[in-house]
């Protein structure tokens, strides 16, 4: 055996340009694609390289017992309410703004209902109205944009939640935000401050690359008309499928700042969110966006937003989620108080608590909602399995695993496990409010991680005789305390 990439070269030689994109089967709701984001081996640290470090002495626990009138605090006493980007939520977990892929769209209203009942913030990605209809469904089996929004508001837990809606260039052509802003059915929610418009300035696994998609001929012709770049030109070359490229958009510090101000000006009754990707100048972007007064900044680490990304970009583009968290951590030290939301391969309560301890206000989850929504009996047989690529198995899986109302319960169950984990872990740190979490609650077993964040290394001091204070001074940080 050799590790020379024989097979990859043969694949490229046989399939040509198509081979650098995942196939349609691979991007369906049971696929493994994108889950394997590290390539052949894990090459960078993740949240798993950080550990939570409970203390023996718990003054906050003592204090909490005064409020509880003489009873020891219990994990259920941990209050998980948060305010993120202007919305109140019962958990620091947001359903990430996922867009039009059909396997997500078909369960998106179930997720809307689950999020609404749980009191979570619900995101809607780009291209939904353009693909599945604003109001009237383009496919009777597929919910439209309004189906998602109205389902959410029909079930919303009083006093909690909110809906975050993206608009890309194609949506802009049909003026999605303007249309929503003047839609009488949601005007009241707009006035209550329950709607945010989210600028999309990046996505985890394809930072710096626009939306990439393989589309059929009819779609190619329609989209070419709307200004997308289609390869090859469907007017000239007739074939079954085409590459659809959309622009990664153009930003400078000035453009971002003014786009935020412009939205604030045009839509004074919506919150303004900004979603970005794992860019190397993330720290600068955070400063600019915070100064322009954005309500929340969602940062997708390279492990996130895998969607239809070319394999090369999945493996080689962008900062890992943990580095993005570091940029948030630094911004907190600079005194920036804007809401930060971290995303990118987060699926467990422990990861949420770690992110919060290091400066995030919340996390956004995408794929976990998709998988949870599809957790029907026998789902385990198919989800994430290589053999799912087989056409027969795929057909069988679709037959066995049909979307239904049960998805609501599955998502709720899944989220409740995160709530329990978060409460257990936060209580173990002797704290009963998420606001009290801080970097004192985490350590790292990875020397590099400990060093970059200025955390305690669980195997002792970083180098010989230095006090914590010396270390901090050397790095130019000032310690923040809970």
């Amino acid at each position, binding site marked *: 055996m050799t590790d020379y990439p024989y097979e990859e070269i043969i694949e490229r030689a046989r399939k040509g340009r198509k081979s650098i994109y995942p196939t349609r089967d691979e991007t369906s709701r049971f696929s493994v694609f994108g889950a394997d984001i590290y390539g052949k081996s894990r090459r960078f640290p993740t949240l798993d390289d950080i550990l939570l470090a409970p203390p023996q002495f718990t003054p906050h626990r003592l204090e909490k017992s005064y409020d509880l009138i003489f009873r020891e605090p219990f994990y259920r006493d941990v209050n998980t309410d948060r305010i993120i980007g202007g919305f109140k939520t019962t958990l620091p977990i947001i359903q990430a703004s996922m867009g039009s892929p059909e396997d997500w769209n078909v369960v998106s209203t179930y997720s809307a209902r689950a999020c609404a009942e749980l009191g979570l913030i619900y995101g809607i990605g780009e291209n939904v109205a353009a693909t599945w209809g604003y109001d009237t469904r383009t496919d009777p089996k597929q919910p439209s944009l309004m189906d998602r929004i109205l389902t959410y508001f029909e079930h919303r837990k009083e006093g909690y939640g909110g809906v975050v809606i993206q608009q890309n260039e194609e949506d802009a052509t049909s003026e999605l935000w*303007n249309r929503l802003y003047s839609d009488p059915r949601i005007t009241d929610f707009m006035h209550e401050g329950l709607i945010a418009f989210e600028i999309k300035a990046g996505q985890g696994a394809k930072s710096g690359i626009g939306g990439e998609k393989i589309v059929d001929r009819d779609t190619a012709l329609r989209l070419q008309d709307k200004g997308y770049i289609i390869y090859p030109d469907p007017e000239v070359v007739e074939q079954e499928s085409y590459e659809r490229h959309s622009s990664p958009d153009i930003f400078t510090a000035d453009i971002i700042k003014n786009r935020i101000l412009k939205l604030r000006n045009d839509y*004074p009754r919506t919150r303004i969110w900004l979603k970005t990707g794992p860019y190397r100048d993330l720290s600068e972007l955070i400063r600019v966006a915070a100064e322009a007064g954005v309500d929340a900044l969602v940062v997708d680490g390279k492990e996130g937003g895998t969607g239809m990304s070319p394999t090369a970009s999945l493996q080689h583009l962008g900062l890992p989620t943990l580095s993005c968290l570091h940029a948030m951590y630094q911004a907190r030290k600079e005194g920036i108080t804007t809401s930060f939301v971290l995303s990118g391969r987060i699926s467990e309560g422990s990861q949420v608590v770690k992110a919060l301890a290091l400066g995030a206000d919340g996390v956004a989850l995408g794929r976990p909602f998709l998988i949870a929504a599809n957790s029907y009996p026998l789902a385990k047989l198919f989800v994430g399995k290589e053999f799912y690529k087989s056409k027969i198995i795929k057909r069988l899986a679709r037959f066995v695993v049909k979307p239904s109302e049960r998805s609501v319960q599955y998502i709720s169950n899944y989220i409740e496990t995160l709530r329990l984990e978060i409460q257990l872990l936060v209580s173990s740190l002797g704290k009963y409010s998420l606001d009290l979490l801080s970097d004192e609650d985490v350590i790292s077993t990875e020397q590099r991680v400990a060093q970059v964040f200025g955390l305690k290394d669980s195997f002792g001091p970083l180098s010989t005789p230095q006090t914590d204070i010396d270390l901090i001074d050397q790095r130019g940080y000032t310690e923040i305390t809970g």
Partner: protein
Amino acid sequence: MALQQYKSYTPSSYLETLQHDPFAIISDPVMQWVYETYDLVSQSMRDYLSKDQHFLEFKPPLIGPVTDPGTRGAKQTEIEFYGKDYKFMSSGILYKQLLAISREEAGMPGRIYFFADNLRMEPLETANTDRHLAEFIQVDLEMVGADHFDAMEIAEGLVTSVYKDMKLHESKLQTIWERFAPTWEDRGLSPRTSLTVPSRFKRYEFKDAVDLLLAHIDEYPQVIPEMEKRFGIKATKLRHDAELPWEYEWLLSSLHEEPFFIHDYPRGARGFYDREYESKPGILMDFDLLMPHGYGEVISGAAREYDHRRVIPRMKESGESLSKYKWYLSFLQKHGKPTAGFGIGLERTVRYFCALPSIMMALPYPKVPGVFTP
């Protein structure tokens, strides 16, 4: 009988009647005088622009591949044009810039104007401002080699000229005023018995206008709940870096006795075509003209960006796709030069001179945002 009529002319009962029996309203002699005023104001504007100022009137396009994207929160209307998506004009701004420059390059005066039909699906909250219609006429002009201050001079001249012409018809206006006087207080409008042709209009920089409002609110905090009641909304925060919200614009207008300009708006407030000062980044070379006594804005104008390298980043700020504007950008690249212009709302002007409680009464078939009427 007379009292009965007043009651039926509050904006809400007016709309109700209009839905079921438009003839009853349109055939009312007082309303006919309003429509005559509409005609007089139009003629007065045409006289001033065509005869006094040598502007040429063009018939504006009704539909096109792109239209003005800079209308705050208002949606455009799409129309299918032989398989392509066209827009109904929300304003002809991009088209008038090209007309003015082409006319100038042809050796004629580079001054043009439209009486342009505009269609804007305004947010529903504008149904309460008494000065938004989804369908309206804008007298839209553009002049080459001018900046916003030059355009303000034309604006002042135009409005003053309409004042003078309307003064000649004062007694007719007074009959109209009498009809609507009982509704004024409720709509936040000051009483009026005569028309005074104003002297030189006051000019405020935007930041000074905001400061003036902030100081006023500081002194009279009770105006906030008043505004909220008047517009049926929760007042938004007043900011130095965004357009004045409707409710504050009304407040500022009600504090004035004569028309006044606000100029130098912040960059986020307007579309990509309003030029930014090179010496004052973040500030636009633009202006609004507000009528006094609570009637508010009638004119919006600016010097234009004409260098495509400055327009492209501004387009990206609005999230616009560049390919939509290919023809416009290549025109700027080849022929871009300084122009300035403005649009004046015809119905708003008529509303002001007739002292109507709401703009919907300025024309026989008004389209109020979200209300279905003939």
